[in-house]
């Protein structure tokens, strides 16, 4: 197992490099460039633009720009933001905690709510409960995030006045757990909506598939109680694909965070990405995307490892 993980990590390095090359190339293909922003100021002359371009290293050929970026990355220097001239690593570090808090909470919410309702829905297949759950899952999957967020803000912020409508903390409270939780509730609810809905669907279909298997009949024939049949035989097997899908889906929460963080003015990496995209701040975009690619690779590995642990049929050596 240890060797397997080590080998996978080694394999991930060229993969990550290829990803960064592709991402860098795609960014160059994006219309316009980082200088477009300055152009909206009528005072800016062609000379000004040439000077800025030179200082940012944009006058060099694209492959050289990429190579310089990679060279700095290897030494732990993620470059500096075009727009704020601050080190990218610093920008990412100060946003990371916020994003992970949000991602982790919605992960937990999706897990604690999504899986049980998926199980319930599978066990009560074709019952009213199942139809209601199914209806809300599809509702959750198809609902525009913006709209759902706005409705929650209007209801819990404006109408009821229970929760703050945006931000991560009250500017005048230094640290207070309750203050943080209050700010977290709405964005976490919005971010978890999609994953909650889809995970409950996964859980439902996976459990249904397992329940139809002969070994579940075997278990019943053994004289096991129904509850034990489900817990001991059905769930354990049904969870294998669900756990893997969830592990792979976690980095997906990150992409969902881009919208959620923007709507709720949440100071995370998703928002940093959104802001930087508007300015085509290449170094920041590269930084955030590299982190994302890293997450994807890591969680794929985690998924494989979990699979190996859960399913005796899989072995890695």
């Amino acid at each position, binding site marked *: 197992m240890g060797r397997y993980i080590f080998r996978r990590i080694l394999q991930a390095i060229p993969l990550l490099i290829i990803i960064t090359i592709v991402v860098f190339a795609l960014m160059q293909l*994006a*219309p*316009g*460039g980082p*200088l*477009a*922003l*300055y*152009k*909206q*100021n*009528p*005072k*800016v*002359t*062609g000379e*000004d*633009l040439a*000077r*800025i*371009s030179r*200082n940012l290293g944009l006058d060099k050929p694209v492959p050289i720009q990429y190579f310089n970026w990679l060279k700095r990355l290897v030494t732990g220097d993620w470059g*500096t933001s075009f*727009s*704020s*001239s601050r*080190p990218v690593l610093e920008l990412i570090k*100060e946003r990371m905690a*916020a994003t992970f808090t949000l991602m982790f909470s919605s992960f937990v919410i999706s897990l604690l709510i999504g899986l049980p309702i998926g199980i319930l829905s599978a066990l009560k297949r074709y019952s009213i409960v199942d139809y209601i759950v199914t209806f809300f899952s599809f509702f959750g999957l198809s609902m525009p995030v*913006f709209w759902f*967020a*706005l409705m929650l*803000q*209007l209801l819990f*912020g*404006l109408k009821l*006045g229970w929760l*703050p*409508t*945006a*931000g*991560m*903390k*009250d*500017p*005048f409270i230094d640290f207070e757990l*309750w203050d943080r939780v*209050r700010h977290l509730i709405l964005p976490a609810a919005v971010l978890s909506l999609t994953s909650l809905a889809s995970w409950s669907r996964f859980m439902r279909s996976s459990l249904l598939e397992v329940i139809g298997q002969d070994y579940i009949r075997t278990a019943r024939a053994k004289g096991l109680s129904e509850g034990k049949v489900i817990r001991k035989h059905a769930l354990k097997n049904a969870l294998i694909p669900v756990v893997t899908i969830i592990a792979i889906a976690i980095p997906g929460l990150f992409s969902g965070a881009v919208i959620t963080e*923007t*709507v*709720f*003015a*949440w*100071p*995370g990496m998703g*928002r*940093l990405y*959104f*802001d930087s995209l508007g300015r*085509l701040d290449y170094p920041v975009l590269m930084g955030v995307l590299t982190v994302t690619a890293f997450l994807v690779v890591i969680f794929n590995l985690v998924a494989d490892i979990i699979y190996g642990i859960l399913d005796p049929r899989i072995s890695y050596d």
Partner: protein
Amino acid sequence: MRRLVTLVFVAALVVVMAASFSVSAAGGRVIVMNQQEPNMINPYLDSMQATFDVSQLTWGGMLELDEKWELIPSLALEVPSLQNGGISKDGLTYTWKLRKDVKWSDGAPFTSEDIKFTWEYIMNDNLNVVSRTGFEEITAIETPDKYTVVMKLKQIHVPMLYVWTGPTIVPKHILSKSKNLNEDSFNMNPVGLGPYVLDKWEHGSYLIFKKNPNYWRKGYPKLDQIVYKPIPDENTAFTQLATKEIDVYQTFPTNQYKQVKALTHVNVTETASTYWEHININCKSPLLTDVRVRQALRYATDLKKLQETVYEGLWPVAVSDQGSPFWKNAKLKPYQFDLKKAGQLLDQAGWKLGNDGMRYKNGKKLTLVISTTAGRIPREMTEQILQQDWKKIGVDLVIKNYDAGKFFATYDEGGILDTGDYDLAVFAWGSSPDPDNYTLWHSAQFPPAGQNNVFWSNKRVDELIITSRKELDVNKRKAMIDEIQQIMWEEVPMIPTFYWVNLDAFNKNIKNIKPNGTSSGNLWNAYEWELK
């Protein structure tokens, strides 16, 4: 068990409610919202309004631009002029008298050396300054004493005063020691001359400013704290205003006008802006070289309809590129919407109506492409209205919109505007209160050299632009600027449409609000803000 659950639930509910009531604003602080987060607190290195706003709070300048777009002295004792001798007769020497006993926020004295250093700082080639316009005209700065600054100019440069207006001065005693000016921590937390200093910056969340204890205006600022809070989403910003989580909602979109107006605890202000919306006409395009065609298009542009349907009747109709009450040519009237006249002009230009109701010349159909930044709904609506109206005079208008990045990209990056890959283009320019639009209209400024992306050249206008830049007599200069506007009115290198109006909402409990439509922004007089 169930009773216990209920009890816990009720208790949680009570805590939530109690906590929500306890969040009421204490005295002496105002929370200002802006869509974007500042990149830094240095207006030289970044062109965002948010960056300018927070620089207004912390930096100082020799002059200020007030809400009437007039220059008033700030760290200078008076505005230099020919009359008071601050500007020499030949216009090549500016002499500034500085206030004494002014201190930087760290307590160090402010002197003429700082002005001189600021100029050297901007001219440093390694610094990523957005624009050096104006600074480049200075050849030398002398400091005969601690409170006198003498500037020598290469040539007459009338907008020189604006160069030193607003947040402009950097501290020599800090930055002269800097190893890397671009990445210096000064850019994030400056030592300044403004009424406030940065207390805390939670990146992505907010910036908290506190009183500058060394501020030179005695008894100011009045507020203890100003919080600057970026909120990217408009709906969220509105909700935050409604829940009083923010006190100031800056430049909200026109479609929220009624909603915001309906809130009883805020005042809505409508402030004329220096931005003006217009339709670029590509004079390089073979279909548009004939001035009669350009005039016809202007006659066929129904500004009244656009004003009502697109801008809720809030934005005033523009006649020229000058929005300032002083510089606008008062004799000019907007073209009256007149499709008949437009048709006649097209006839004269040789574009005859075909059987299909469209116009043809030498067998070629009059098809024009109009472009703007995709997703800007008012501009897209404008295009659609023009498409319908112009069809009536036989002009086939094709809409082809681009991502903002592509649209505004530089010449080298293949930008739509700069490469002239369009017939008509809808967008806005923001002008400075000075009327000089050299980069926009001078024929030497075709991209990539400058921003004349209508590719229009007019000898007389070139001449007027150059001479007006050197004319120190305001009235004589005004006559020249009037003439430029007159020529552009006739030649139609672009169709001016509307002056922007900034819509801002302020909590009614804030006193001394003086919204400023120039780049000075609403925070220019934040030192005076006070709570009722």
